[in-house]
């Protein structure tokens, strides 16, 4: 593990900064939940929560899992699996007419 590849990886200080960003995004998510309960934001709430989750997802995969620093082969395999699963289950949910989410 003492390979030169890690020269490209973020420093511990950067990892802490990323953690702060993730914590703030989580706090915003929880705040959105309560704001929606108070003011009923409708579809906007669902949209914002999904965007926030995608942001957190991308940050963890890109920086903590180092996918953005890895060979493109790995990115293709990983995103390929994700897109396949997302497409498959979106089709299933759409076909069954189920959108059981707030504001959906």
């Amino acid at each position: 593990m003492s390979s030169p590849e890690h020269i490209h990886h973020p420093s511990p200080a950067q990892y802490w900064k990323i953690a702060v960003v993730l914590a703030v995004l989580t706090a915003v998510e929880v705040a959105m939940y309560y704001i929606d309960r108070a003011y009923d934001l409708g579809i906007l709430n669902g949209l914002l929560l999904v965007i926030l989750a995608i942001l957190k997802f991308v940050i963890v995969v890109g920086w903590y899992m180092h996918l953005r620093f890895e060979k493109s082969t790995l990115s293709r395999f990983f995103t390929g699996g994700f897109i396949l699963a997302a497409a498959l289950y979106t089709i299933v949910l759409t076909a069954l007419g189920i959108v059981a989410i707030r504001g959906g």
Partner: protein
Amino acid sequence: MAELAHEAALDHAHPEHESTGVENRKLGMWLFLSSEFLFFGALITNYLLYSNRGGFAGVYPAEIYDIPFTSVSSFVLLMSSLTMVLAHNAQSRDDHNGTRTWLFATAALGSVFLGGQVFEFTEFIVEFDMTLATNPAASAFYVLTGFHGTHVAIGVIMLLALWGISRRRGGLSDKQGLNLELVGLYWHFVDIIWIVIFTVVYLLSVPPT
């Protein structure tokens, strides 16, 4: 051009690479994680199918979620990703003390998350009488979060095993360092699945009207 230079640099970083340019075990782990999207996708879809379908007896999960409690659990798991990546970073710098400390911290945070899940399940069963057999929504909830919890538990066991090995004189070897990286990938994956579950299952779920 820059991408080619980056790939070449990575080739140089892995003297023993395979025909794909990526170490086999690492490629295997990424493929395994990729396939896990289908596994958890099926469980999440199952939950969405039943979470607000009315007509069943008993309490629905979305009626009894404790969002503040689950938010704290989510935060704990999120921070365990930080300690995991710090363990990986310490290992790459041959900082054995740092590796040990952060590995243990990750396992501890994972255990706290699991404790929270046990508490949540116990509360749902004892206080609200919502068991696995109450209705399809409850069943889908327990199966989804239970399988995620099982993944976390497996991760904690692997982390503690690595921590035990790292306590030996000389710390983790280069080969075991790859094991740490693979366990780290697994751990981060468990975290990103929880990011999805927290949003879709907890924050966006609504009980049937």
